[in-house]
């Protein structure tokens, strides 16, 4: 191996063309592995909120039930938007590994736009619920509902802001091992949020329409 490579990239992580750019430094592999551990802990956090919701679902205290409250059109559009955003986010990683910065940034912008569509419908749903008196303090069911769905919405809000900041760095610095690692981590975060939403529309919305 040439000395120039050793000087730039260190002894332990020689640059291998078969390794994607986001893994080109040892620290990057560690950060990506660490982020997977965070996703595991976030999964456990959501499981506690799901358990609370499932137990509280029937405790409506004379207030609105899930069958009366949930709007099929709203949560269908939210689901479609998030499924397609997961796809476009995957295409951004695909273009990143092919070295196409502009195509990658375009797919990330589309992902952020679909995330904003999702958030728009979710905020509209929450505002509508509050306007008819279905507030968080109305019943155990609504407390658990707003906590679970709101925590996911908060994650999506953070995800769009985070993704925008990564887009700015990609435009300024191009695809480097550092920006590639940041983009890779925000993309697996985004796919994870879609996976959590799958369980929200299954356990909260569809189940709420069945029972």
């Amino acid at each position: 191996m040439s000395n120039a490579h050793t000087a730039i990239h260190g002894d332990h992580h020689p640059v291998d063309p078969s390794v994607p750019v986001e893994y080109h430094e040892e620290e990057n592999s560690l950060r990506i592995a660490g982020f997977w551990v965070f996703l595991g802990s976030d999964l456990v956090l959501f499981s506690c909120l799901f358990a609370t919701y499932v137990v509280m679902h029937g405790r409506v205290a004379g207030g609105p039930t899930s069958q009366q409250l949930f709007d099929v059109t709203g949560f269908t559009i939210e689901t479609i938007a998030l499924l397609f955003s997961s796809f476009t986010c995957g295409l951004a990683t695909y273009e990143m590994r092919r070295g196409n910065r502009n195509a990658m940034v375009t797919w990330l912008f589309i992902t952020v736009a679909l995330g904003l569509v999702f958030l728009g419908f979710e905020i509209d749903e929450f505002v509508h619920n509050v306007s008819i008196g279905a507030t968080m303090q109305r019943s155990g069911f609504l407390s658990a509902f707003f906590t679970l769905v709101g925590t996911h919405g908060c994650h999506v809000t953070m995800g769009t802001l985070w993704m925008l900041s990564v887009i700015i760095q990609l435009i300024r610095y191009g695809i480097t091992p550092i920006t590639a690692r940041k983009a890779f981590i925000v993309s697996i975060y985004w796919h994870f949020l879609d996976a959590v939403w799958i369980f929200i529309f299954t356990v909260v919305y569809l189940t709420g329409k069945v029972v």
Partner: protein
Amino acid sequence: METKEHKFHQETGFPWKHVIGLLLSLVLTAIAFWLALATHQPPAVVISIIVVLGFGQLLVQLYMFMHFTESDDRAWQVPTIYFALFIAFTVVGGSIWIMSFRSIVS
């Protein structure tokens, strides 16, 4: 020097993996929506099936989109995520199970 095992998906040609992942997630979503909203099966049957479909969608996200098995050394994220899933199912399933005794006890 030890040789490391590289397990990365090569990004060549048309992104079939992503397109198939999208189609699978759309089909699984459509089946779940149809079962829950358009058929009139017993709730327990519908809920069991759509939870299984949701778990299938989780696997689609992990394996088709999230580069789940990739690593430059060992894919430590695989046991990490499966352990987290085990905790999650224990917490949720255990809560449902223990609360179902309430009606008998009280």
